[in-house]
C-alpha cells in the first residue's frame, strides 16, 4: 500500500477528510434549522437532537427498548443461521435437491417479509414471537442463497483429491466443502445481520412490540420530534455497529480465500 510508505500527511488524510466531511454535514444541519429554512417542528437543530440523544442515553427506558430490539435481532439472526446453513449445505451439495427446490426458493425469496405483518398480527399477535419470526424470515433467504453458492463453488479438484485419498462423504463435507463455503456464509451473515435489524425494528414500529421501533412510534404520535430524531440516530448507530462487526468478520473469513491471496501479496 502506498499509504504505508507515505508520510504522516498521506496516512492521516483519510481520517481528516472524514472528520471534516462529517463536521460540515452537522454544521449544515444546524444552520438549516437555525436559519428557519425548515421549521424546528420538522427538523430539530442538530444540537437539540444530540442533547436529546444524550439525555435519552441516561434513561433506563431507552436501554430497555434498545436491549429488546437487540434481542429480537439476535434471535432472528441466530435462528435464521441455524436453519439456513444446514439447509443450504444440503441443497448445495446435492444437485437433485437443489433443482427440486429451485423454483419454490426463487419464488419465496423476493417476497418482502414486511407483507407478512398483517398475518402475524392475526396469528402470533403483538409478541416477541412475531418479531423473531419476521426477522428470521427476512434473514433466512440471503444466508440460504449464499450457502448454496458457497458449497457449489468448491474447487472440484479438491473434492476429487479428497475422494481419491479415501476421505469419506461426511468428512469431505466438513473438511473440504464447509471451509471453502465459509467466506460465502460470512457474506450471507453480513447481509442477513442488516436485514434482521430492519425487520426487528419494522415489527416494533408497526406492531407495537416493545423496542426502539415502538418507542419511536409513541414519540411520533405525541409530536416529540426531537425524540424521534434522537431515536433514529440511536438506530443508525446500532445499524452501523452491526455493519462494522459483520464486515470485519467477513474480511477475516475471506483472508485465506484464493480470491484474496493475490490482493494481499
Amino acid at each position: 500500500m502506498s499509504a504505508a510508505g507515505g508520510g504522516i500527511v498521506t496516512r492521516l488524510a483519510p481520517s481528516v477528510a472524514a472528520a471534516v466531511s462529517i463536521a460540515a454535514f452537522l454544521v449544515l444541519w444546524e444552520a438549516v434549522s437555525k436559519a428557519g429554512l425548515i421549521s424546528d417542528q420538522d427538523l430539530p437543530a442538530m444540537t437539540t437532537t444530540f442533547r436529546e440523544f444524550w439525555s435519552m442515553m441516561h434513561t433506563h427506558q431507552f436501554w430497555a427498548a434498545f436491549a429488546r430490539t437487540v434481542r429480537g435481532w439476535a434471535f432472528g439472526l441466530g435462528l435464521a443461521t441455524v436453519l439456513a446453513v444446514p439447509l443450504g449445505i444440503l441443497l448445495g451439495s446435492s444437485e437433485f435437491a437443489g433443482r427440486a427446490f429451485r423454483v419454490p426458493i426463487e419464488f419465496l425469496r423476493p417476497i418482502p417479509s414486511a407483507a407478512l405483518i398483517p398475518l402475524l398480527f392475526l396469528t402470533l399477535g403483538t409478541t416477541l414471537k412475531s418479531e423473531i419470526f419476521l426477522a428470521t424470515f427476512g434473514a433466512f433467504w440471503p444466508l440460504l442463497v449464499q450457502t448454496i453458492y458457497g458449497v457449489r463453488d468448491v474447487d472440484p479438484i479438491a473434492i476429487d483429491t479428497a475422494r481419491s485419498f479415501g476421505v469419506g462423504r461426511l468428512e469431505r463435507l466438513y473438511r473440504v466443502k464447509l471451509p471453502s463455503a465459509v467466506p460465502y456464509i460470512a457474506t450471507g451473515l453480513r447481509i442477513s445481520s442488516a436485514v434482521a435489524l430492519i425487520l426487528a425494528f419494522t415489527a416494533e414500529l408497526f406492531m407495537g412490540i416493545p423496542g426502539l421501533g415502538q418507542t419511536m412510534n409513541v414519540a411520533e404520535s405525541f409530536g416529540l420530534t426531537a425524540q424521534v430524531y434522537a431515536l433514529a440516530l440511536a438506530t443508525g448507530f446500532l445499524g452501523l455497529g452491526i455493519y462494522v462487526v459483520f464486515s470485519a468478520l467477513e474480511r477475516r473469513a475471506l483472508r485465506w480465500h484464493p480470491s484474496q491471496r493475490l490482493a494481499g501479496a
Partner: protein
Amino acid sequence: MSGRAYRSAAIAAEIAVPLAILVAWQVWTVHANDPLFPRLSTILVQFREMWLFSQFELHVVPSLTRIGAGFAIAVVLGILLGVPLGLSRWGRLLAMPHVEWWRAMPPPALLPISVALLHSIGNRQKISFIAFFCLFPILLNTIDGVRGIDPTFIETARSYGVRRLERICRIVLPAALPQIFAGMRTSLSLAVIMMVLTEYFSSTSGVGYVLLISKNTFQLAPMWAAIVLIGVLGYVLNLLLILLERRVLSWHRGWRAAEAQ
C-alpha cells in the same frame, strides 16, 4: 442410476416439487378450515377478482408508479454520483462516511422523519423514500465497478486523445456496467419492500394500503390476495431486470466466455 436417468429425474422433481407444495397448501387449508388461512383456491379466485383487473388501476398502478419512479431516480443518481466518486480519491474520502452511515441505517427508522420533512404522505414522500434507500446499493456498486477498471484502458484512451466525457461514456460506464446491474438487482428488491413499508405507514392507495385495510377489517381472502400479489410483483420485477441485464450485458458475457477458452 445412469446420467441421463438422473437428469430426467431431476427435471421431474423440479416440476413436481412446486406442484406438490401447492397441492399440500390446498389440502391443508381445506382440512384445517381455519378462517385465518383461507383455501388456496379461494385466495386465487379473490386474486383474480381484485387484481385482474378491477382494482388494478386503483391500487396496483400507484404502487408500480412509486417503485418505478423511485428506482429510476436511484439508478440515475447512483450512476451520476458513483462515476465521479469512483474516479476521484478525494471525492471518496469526503463522501464515504455519509454513504456508509446511510446504507447502515435501517430504513423504517426514517419513515416518521420522511413524513415530517416532506410534509407529504403522497407520492412525493413515497417516491423520495424509495429513491433514497435504493440509491446506496447502486452508488456503492458503481464506485466499486469504476475503481475496478484496468487503468491502462483509461490511459490508452487518454493518449489517443479521447476526451474525458467520451472516455467516461465509452470506457468507464460499459466496464462498470456488470457491477452496476448487481447493485440494481439489490435495489429493486429493496424498492418493493420500501413500497410496502411506506404504503403501510400512512397512505390512501396502493397494494400495501389494501393489505393493511383488509387486515383491519378482517377480510382475510383479500389480505391473502394482497400478500400473493406482492410476492408476484417482487418475482416478476426481478425477472424483468434479469432479462434486461442479459440483453444489455450480452457483449460482456460473450467476451468473458471467449476469454475463458
